[in-house]
C-alpha cells in the first residue's frame, strides 16, 4: 500500500483527467447525500405526523 500521488496538486490534477474523475465522484457524493437528507426529512415528518394524530386521538376519545 503506497500512496499514488507525490503531492496534493498531483492528486488534484488526476493525471489530466480531474474533471472526469472528480466529476463522477462528486456527482455520486451529491446524489447519495441527497438520498440521505430526503429520507431523514421524510422520516421525521411522518413520525411527527403519526405522534400528533395519536395524541389527538387520546385527548378526544369519541367526538
Amino acid at each position, binding site marked *: 500500500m503506497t500512496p499514488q500521488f507525490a503531492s496534493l496538486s498531483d492528486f488534484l490534477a488526476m493525471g489530466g*483527467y480531474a474533471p472526469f474523475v472528480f466529476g463522477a465522484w462528486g456527482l455520486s457524493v451529491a446524489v447519495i447525500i441527497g438520498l440521505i437528507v430526503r429520507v431523514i426529512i*421524510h422520516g421525521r415528518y411522518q413520525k411527527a405526523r403519526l405522534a400528533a394524530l395519536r395524541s389527538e386521538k387520546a385527548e378526544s376519545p369519541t367526538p
Partner: protein
Amino acid sequence: MISGFANPQRFLGLSAWLLPVTSLLAVVATAIGVVWSLWYAPADYQQGETARIMFIHVPSAWIAVGAYTGMAIGSLSYLVWGHALGDIAAKVMAPIGAAFTALCLATGSIWGRPTWGTWWEWDGRLTSVLVLFFLYLGYMALRSALEETSKASKAAAILCLVGTINIPIIRFSVEWWNTLHQKASIIREGGPSLDPSMLHPLLVMGVAYLLIFAALTLAAMRAEIWKRSADAILARQAA
C-alpha cells in the same frame, strides 16, 4: 429474525437498533473505501487515473441490479403470502434503486468519454441498464397514479415481477452483444481477472454501497410504516 421482519411493529423494534448499526458500518466502510480508491489504488496502465471511476461506477451498478432484485423478492412475498412489509420494501426501494441506476449511467458515461471516446453508445449493456432505469420510473409512476390501496400494490408488484426478465438480460448482455462494454471481470469463470490491488478497494466500496443502500432502505421503510399508520388513523376518523 425473518418472521420478525414480516410484522411491521416488530420490524420497527428490530430496525431501531439495526439502522444505527448499519449506518455506522456504512460510514466506516465508505471512509476506508474512498481513501483506498482515490489515494492508494494504482492507476491503470492503459486508462491512467480515469480507472478510479470504476470504484464508484461498478458498486452503483451492483446496487442498481440488487435493489431491483430486492423489489422483486418483496413483491413476490406480498403477492404470495400477503406480507405488507414486502410491499413496503418494494415501494421504498424503487426511488433509491432509480437513483443508483442514474448514478451508474452517469458515471459510466463520464468514464466512457476519455476511454471509449464517446459519452453514449447503444451497446447491449448500456441499453439494458437504461431499460432498468425506465422500469424503476414506470413502477413509481404506476404507484403514484393509483391510490394507495391493495389493488395499487398488487398492480405494482406484478409490473415489478414482469420487469425481472431484464435482470438476466443485463447480466448476459456483454456476452450476447459484443460491442463496447467490457465483459464481467469479478463474478466470472476462473475467478476475478482484476488485479488484487484494484479488486480489494473495489470490494470495500461495494460493501460500503451495500451498507448505504441497506441503511437508506431501513430508514425509508420505517417512515413508510409511520405514514401508513397515520393514514389508517385518518381513514378510521373519516369513517
